[in-house]
């Protein structure tokens, strides 16, 4: 099938002042702006996508993933002893995380159509490599900021599946007590700073978390504070002002942040090529003074290598990195999207590059795992997701008393009532029926 690992994955353009060795850039022929739909099987001039998937699979050889700080290795033409990128334990961990993301999202779709959750639900199928590739390298104190497509980011960061599922069902046991919903997943314990419904509005929040990390180190003199923050957002957001403003500020103050663009080519029904004057998003990094890296987002190992370097760069205090992951969502924009606009051949092309299948193949080819071990993981995750649904289903709905809680951290903010007492002292307040 698809040999996603046989091609050089990263292309790197550095601003001249940084001392990474510049890689030879491939000849990026211009896309035809008139073409509204991408046809990966036609027109090989479209270098935006790695379209070498039709070539014969390599002989289980090592990937030629290039870390940001290294020179590009030329692809090896003859297989030698494999230079493995992951250990067995890491492989299993990555596999489990991606399977969790996939099964969970599939279950969400089922539950949605059964009327257990409502509203806008955006599923992450197909993009698991990005979430797993980045978040599995983070510590608990590192922050993650996402968009409305945040279920899998929450799961990767460590939020229990039952808490996320309860939140989707709108139960009081959800991670946000049922008050946030699909698009607002938050977890203080796991430092998931949300979950934002408007695109772009999470990026400044991530920048703020990175600012706190730098503040702690430099003002509060906590020398061991090297928390990194990672902001995930899509190709549509890369045209938004907040994105550019934050790139500027992060590079200016060398904030420990990684900007991860999950370029799945579509912003609901707007093709990235129709919306963007310069579709290569990674090129926008050097314009602001940070490295811009481009990586195949359907390949978790390549993503992981790039992520490792970007995160370490931030941890060392060298500043931000912009990583563009080319990926694809197998489902529509949301469960309400009929997804009629995208070309079926494009969809089937990416279906062959499923990141989970690719990782599986890599691990088998390198004799890292056995079929049974993977099956065991799949079974375990199946049960976990089933259990999460049961837990969510049996959890209570929020009572009326919860209505007025959490509006203010200090509920005196509701003010003083005509009787001279604070509104929050009114017994009706705790019942949720007070008039504020």
């Amino acid at each position, binding site marked *: 099938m698809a040999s996603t690992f046989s091609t050089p994955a990263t292309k790197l353009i550095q601003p001249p002042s940084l001392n990474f060795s510049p890689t030879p850039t491939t000849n990026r022929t211009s896309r035809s702006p008139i073409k509204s739909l991408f046809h990966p099987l036609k027109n090989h001039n479209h270098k935006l996508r790695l379209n070498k998937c039709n070539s014969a699979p390599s002989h289980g050889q090592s990937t030629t993933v290039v870390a940001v700080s290294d020179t590009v290795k030329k692809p090896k033409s003859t297989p030698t002893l494999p230079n493995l990128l992951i250990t067995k334990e890491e492989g299993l961990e990555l596999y489990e995380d991606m399977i969790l993301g996939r099964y969970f999202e599939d279950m969400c779709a089922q539950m949605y159509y059964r009327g257990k959750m409502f509203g806008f639900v955006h599923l992450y199928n197909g993009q698991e490599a990005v979430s797993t590739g980045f978040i599995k390298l983070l510590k608990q104190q590192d922050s993650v900021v996402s968009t409305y497509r945040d279920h899998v980011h929450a799961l990767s960061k460590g939020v229990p599946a039952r808490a996320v599922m309860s939140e989707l069902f709108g139960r009081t046991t959800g991670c946000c007590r049922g008050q946030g*919903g699909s698009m607002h997943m938050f977890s203080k314990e796991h430092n998931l700073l949300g979950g934002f419904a408007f695109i772009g509005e999470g990026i400044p929040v991530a920048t*703020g978390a990175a*600012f706190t*990390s730098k503040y702690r180190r430099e003002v509060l003199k906590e020398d061991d504070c090297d928390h990194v923050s990672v902001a995930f957002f899509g190709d549509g957001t890369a045209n938004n002002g907040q994105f550019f403003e934050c790139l500027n*500020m992060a590079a200016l103050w060398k904030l420990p942040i990684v900007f991860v663009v999950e370029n799945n080519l579509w912003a609901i029904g707007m093709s990235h090529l129709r919306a963007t004057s310069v579709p290569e998003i990674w090129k926008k990094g050097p314009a602001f003074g940070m490295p811009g890296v481009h990586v195949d987002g359907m390949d978790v190992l390549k993503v992981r290598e790039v992520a490792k370097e970007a995160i370490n760069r931030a941890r060392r205090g060298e500043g931000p990195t912009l990583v563009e992951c080319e990926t694809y969502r197998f489902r529509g924009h949301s469960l309400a999207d009929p997804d009629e606009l995208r070309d079926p051949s494009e969809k089937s092309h990416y279906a062959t590059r499923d990141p989970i299948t690719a990782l599986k193949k890599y691990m088998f080819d390198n004799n890292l795992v056995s079929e049974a071990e993977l099956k065991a993981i799949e079974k375990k995750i199946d049960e976990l997701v089933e259990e999460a649904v049961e837990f969510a289903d049996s959890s209570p709905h929020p009572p009326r008393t919860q209505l007025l809680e959490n509006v203010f951290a200090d509920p005196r903010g509701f003010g003083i009532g005509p009787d001279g007492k604070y509104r929050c002292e009114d017994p009706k307040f705790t019942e949720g029926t007070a008039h504020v």
Partner: protein
Amino acid sequence: MAVVFQAIGAATALSSANVFDSKRIQFSYGRSLSERKASICAVRSDGMLYSGSSPRGRKPEPLISNAVATKAEGSTASAASKPGHELLLYEALREGLEEEMARDPTVCVIGEDVGHYGGSYKVTRGLAEKYGDLRVLDTPIAENSFTGMAIGAAMTGLRPIVEGMNMGFLLLAFNQISNNCGMLHYTSGGQFTIPVVIRGPGGVGRQLGAEHSQRLESYFQSIPGIQLVACSTPYNAKGLMKAAIRSENPVILFEHVLLYNLKERIPDEEYVLNLEEAEMVRPGEHVTILTYSRMRYHVMQATKMLVNKGYDPEVIDIRSLKPFDLYTIGNSVKKTHRVLIVEECMRTGGIGASLTAAINENFHDYLDAPIVCLSSQDVPTPYAGTLEEWTVVQPPQIVTAVEQLCQLQ
């Protein structure tokens, strides 16, 4: 002269001062005054009696009646008799800010030109030299993003103060203020607090033009999850600044461009005011005048004229624009039965409109007359000085309004 009235049930589109039906005038001027003179003996909140008929033309003394002294004793008259020190309003703001920054190392300032330049109105002068460039952060011109950045920093443990160089610029930050600042505590189920203070000068200045003369309090008041306060004197500026910084809620502190150079003597000892309370500026008997920010001074000017004419208005600076202090306001309404709201906000959908609704809802039975609300005209503030003057409420309009209000049954 064009006066803007928002009398409930009265005719709209008023263009002249002679609005009220003469049949409704029950009292003549002289008779009512003599009846009233005998009954005026108000008790001030510090326990001193005074006779309402004496002209009270002096400027308002800083009454400590609503102060929350940090030393846990609610001293009222004692603070007023201590020497204290004199300073200007912007210095008072800076003093409050500096005290909080010294007290808590997580307090930081984020804004345009707050650091090296010292703030466009000098509120942060000297702080960057003292605390460094990261604690008093000069930002690029990206309001939406640096406000969002402040929110992210607040979520992760800092206590930032965002300065809008002019409140009007915060329109660009509306996305972050509405969606994130106001809502994240709720949508995260209470997990994250946003102890951010957003402050800056607003209001109509001296021919600053339409865009620099905006009053954003009306735009922000519907956002759930935030508190709005407006300072008007050096005393309450410092107290509110400190209270806002210490509050766990996001607070928007409205300052006024023309009030930065007000001078007042404030106490030496530390004090923090209450964010939700209103301030009794001048107790009275005849009418309750509710105001905030710069209009407080127009009201006090008008009060001088009114007292000379024999009226005894009670003036309350509501200070807390959201939520309203309905206790102080309610007690006043129950005493005077007539309400006049004087504000600089726009007529449509402004703070006065909300206040009118709130008072009507809660204290309808106590009102002897419809609530009158004087607001600025619903026009973009003109540049020409004469036009600008007619946009905002002026003291003679206030005097006329009180006179007419007191003549109503």
